[in-house]
């Protein structure tokens, strides 16, 4: 190895022979690592296996996928960085944390991508493929030099590893095997049981010929062996044993399984990132449960087919992301008007328009509530964890059916691709949808027999003798006859709206994280829960009276918010969507556009709710949130001082 790399490069001496205890053992409660490569080099698979094994070892785990926007971005470019971030620790991990402590990088360009995003801790350990430093191509050697130069302002500990050279001793195409070699390095560093990882590899490649598993396990062992020989580095994270039965999966898998568990039998979709993996998973398994997956010709038709299936007696699902939700608008209004149950799963991504297709944002909230012309009340709920992605589908189906309404479930790209373990769901027959009832309709029953107090009515579906009627998107009376009279239009609107009030009346106020009263209340929704609560805990530890609450239902909104807000001096939302920076030019308190939840809460509670929101296309970091809370607290106290003066 030539000493051409930057000065920070260390070569770990191999003075400790094989089997001897490494001198350098770090004991930590948690660690965050990531594996990054060019797209197609398998860093994601390596990360997934590491995360699964971590979960099986009872570590708390949270993973985030690092996804390039293109399918095959050019090799060795920052834009092409692809991989997986895994934060794991002794306790439950609820978010991706602040920074990465260890990186395995397959080239210096993908490392630079992470460096430039400020994703790495100052003392980050970097295991990097060393071959680029001596590449025959002078340009590449120069790029390596430049990269090392660029990162030299940090105290990174860079450890070059001859990954490809090592892999070539076992396989012909190292591009296909480096990831398993890297997994071996990690296994040795973190002291993981190699046999457990091998098991996981065999499970991953179960559908392929056994040689594939074997080749991968060989490379894993090669990585372990190389690390034993060459790395004087061990990191030990303690774990707590538990008997609780748990599963580990990502949010899209959880939502798909939840849909099956809820007994939904029909799902129509059109491919869209990042919702597609829900659909692909359902396409693979749904039929085993008698469920139909229909890939429609477009987003509109997907909503239409789902409504048709629901009309015929099921509660159907359609899965989409922001631009798809926009296209489904007209059909969602039809479902509202005809009171046909429908569950819409919107896996949010960055917007507007095509926006950030693979990246996370919480920008569809207002669209989910208000995107229709005319008054079209519907239920909107937002799971905050991967576990809730599963269970929310059961509740969504049930509410859609009982209230004859549209339920929009908002998850996001962070939940969609992140993996976390949670308590294994205990499946219940009672979650299952009722098959279409074909009982004869008795005289006097009407298709919209609204209870005048609640707006609720019972559905009549095709096949029921004596119940024939035509549902229509036009305004209609109790018998579904078209009716344009003022009284009936007023009544229809009131009945559809009343159902939300009824649902709201059965709800409980959201719980408070922290004290029940204090100086600042942070309000959040969706996938930011873990990061917000971690930030709140940190700021509370500094002695500040900060609490948080997290909204699960956005429409109707959970009760008691006004009363809760009144117990805090200040209320602010933390959201992953856009709001104007109050310090920006031209921005005044009057014209400032707020985060979407802040906007809603002000309308709902008449409280002067502030917000701190960002649109980085990646999850919020607890550290950044904590900084925002500190700024809010100090600004508030300054204002008070001014007022007192």
């Amino acid at each position, binding site marked *: 190895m030539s000493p051409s790399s930057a000065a920070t490069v260390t070569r770990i001496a191999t003075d400790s022979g094989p089997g001897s205890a490494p001198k350098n053992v770090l004991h930590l409660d948690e660690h965050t690592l990531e594996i990054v490569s060019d797209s197609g080099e398998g860093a994601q698979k390596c990360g997934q296996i590491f995360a699964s094994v971590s979960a099986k070892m009872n570590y708390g785990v949270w993973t985030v996928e690092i996804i390039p926007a293109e399918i095959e971005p050019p090799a060795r470019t920052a834009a092409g960085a692809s991989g997986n971030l895994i934060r794991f620790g002794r306790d439950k991990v609820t978010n991706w944390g602040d920074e990465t402590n260890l990186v395995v990088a397959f080239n210096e360009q993908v490392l630079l991508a992470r460096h430039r995003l400020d994703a790495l801790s100052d003392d980050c350990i970097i295991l990097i493929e060393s071959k680029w430093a001596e590449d025959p191509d002078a340009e590449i050697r120069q790029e390596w030099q430049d990269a090392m130069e660029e990162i030299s302002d940090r105290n990174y500990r860079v450890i070059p590893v001859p990954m490809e050279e090592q892999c070539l001793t076992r396989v012909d195409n190292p591009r296909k095997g480096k990831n398993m070699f890297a997994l071996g390095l990690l296994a040795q560093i973190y002291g993981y049981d190699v046999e457990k990882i091998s098991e996981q590899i065999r499970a991953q490649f179960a559908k392929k010929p056994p040689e594939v598993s074997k080749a991968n396990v060989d490379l894993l062992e090669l990585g372990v062996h190389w690390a034993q020989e060459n790395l004087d580095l061990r990191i030990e994270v303690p774990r707590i044993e538990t008997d609780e039965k748990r599963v580990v999966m990502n949010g899209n898998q959880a939502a798909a399984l939840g849909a099956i568990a*809820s007994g939904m039998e029909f799902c129509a979709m059109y491919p869209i990132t990042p919702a597609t993996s829900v659909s692909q998973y359902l396409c693979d398994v749904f039929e085993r449960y*008698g469920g139909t997956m229909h890939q429609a010709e477009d987003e509109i038709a997907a909503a239409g087919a789902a409504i048709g299936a629901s009309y015929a007696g099921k509660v159907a699902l359609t899965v989409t992301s922001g631009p798809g939700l926009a296209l489904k608008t007209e059909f969602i209004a039809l479902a509202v008007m005809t009171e046909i149950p429908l569950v819409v799963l919107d896996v949010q991504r960055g917007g507007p328009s095509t926006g950030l297709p693979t990246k996370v944002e919480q920008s569809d909230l207002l669209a989910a509530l208000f995107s229709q012309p005319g008054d079209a009340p519907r239920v909107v*709920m937002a*799971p905050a964890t991967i576990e*809730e992605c599963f*269970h*929310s589908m*059961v*509740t969504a189906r*049930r*509410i859609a059916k*009982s209230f004859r309404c549209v339920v929009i479930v908002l998850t996001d790209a962070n939940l969609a691709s992140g993996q976390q373990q949670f308590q294994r*769901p205990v499946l*219940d*027959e*009672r*979650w*299952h949808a*009722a*098959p279409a*009832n074909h*009982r004869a309709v008795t005289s006097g029953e009407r298709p919209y027999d609204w*209870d005048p107090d*609640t707006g*609720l*009515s*019972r559905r009549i579906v095709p096949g029921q003798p004596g119940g024939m009627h035509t549902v229509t998107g036009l305004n209609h009376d109790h018998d579904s006859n078209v009716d344009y009279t003022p009284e009936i239009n007023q009544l229809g609107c009131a009945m559809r709206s009343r159902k939300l009030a*009824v*649902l709201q*009346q*059965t*709800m*409980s106020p959201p*719980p408070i994280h922290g004290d029940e009263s204090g100086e600042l209340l942070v309000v959040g929704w969706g996938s930011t829960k873990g990061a917000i609560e971690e930030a709140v805990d940190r700021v509370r530890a500094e002695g500040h009276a900060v609490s948080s609450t997290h909204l*699960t*239902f956005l429409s109707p909104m*959970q009760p008691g918010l006004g009363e809760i807000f009144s117990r805090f001096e200040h209320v602010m939302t933390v959201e992953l969507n856009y709001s104007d920076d109050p310090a920006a030019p031209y921005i005044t308190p009057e014209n400032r556009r707020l985060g979407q939840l802040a906007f809603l809460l002000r309308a709902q509670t008449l409280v002067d709710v502030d917000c701190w929101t960002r649109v980085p296309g990646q999850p919020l970091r607890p550290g950044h949130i904590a900084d925002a809370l500190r700024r809010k607290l100090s600004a508030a106290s300054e204002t008070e001082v001014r007022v007192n003066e």
Partner: protein
Amino acid sequence: MPSDSRTPEALDALSGPIQAFRSTLANTSEQIRLMISTRIEQSHESADFERAELGEFAAGRIDAKRLSKILARDEPLPAADTGIIHEALVTCNELLARNENLFRVIVEEGDDLRSAVGRGLAEIGRAYGAARVVELVSQGAFRAAEHSSLLKGHSFESWSRTERSIEFGLVVRVCGRDLRAGGLADYLDRSIKLVLVVQGDAPPAALVRLITPQTLVLQTSEASELEWLASYRGPGVAALVSSAAAQFRHDPAGGPALADRIVITSLPERPPKALGAASAFQQRQDLLQLEALAESHADVVPIDPVAVGEEPPPAAARAVPAADSADALSNWLLRQADLPNSS
């Protein structure tokens, strides 16, 4: 000696209609289960039921007790009848658990083919019986003395027209000497498909007596030929026989003339000898009848269902041709074959 693999092969060939039947049965079972949970169980502990239905996401967020009071519920069923509903569910699930075996009948040697098939059908009929019982209960019309036997057995004779229209297949293993096919004519109504897996020597053309304008009749030694039966939308019967027996097919889709509909691929080389109850004379008559029919170029008189007093089936069974009973057609058969009524 034909091997026993023919029974699974026959079940395989009919797996389409059999699976469809089982699927409908599963759905029926689901509806009964749901009725139990919404109209029996929940009426005791409705909040608990509501809580369970809402799932864990609603726990601590939605007050199930309050919601259950608001949501309209079906009237609870009379307590006296809840037992029979449970029994109906048990019946459905028991039939489901039998898998394909429900559609399989073994005729013990010397036993009567017609009554053995009748027993098989009565078992299948229990599925219809379960649905009937539940309907009767919900209409308040259930009388235990009169109706509870529906769950024990529901014989073909008392099946409704719609019940007879439901397609499924029944595979019957029978000894050749017991192959008195004529008795099966009563069961060949609308959509039912019978496959006889014939063991040992058999009358060479026993099935010829079952030919009617709308019935597909097939005698073959090849299980793959059963595709004819499986794809036919209407009543049909097939016998898997040894290659010594006549091999023929009457396919109503073949054309208007009998000669177009009947295809004989092989006739026995040796003259038949007495077998069981079938005398050599009777067996010869069957063969003659077959040959005569196969040569008839007269068009089959289209049977206008209305003209013979038979309504077409309701639209749920649109493409199923209306079958007529064998009795009404014996004259037609004889006329087509141009044989004197020799009996």
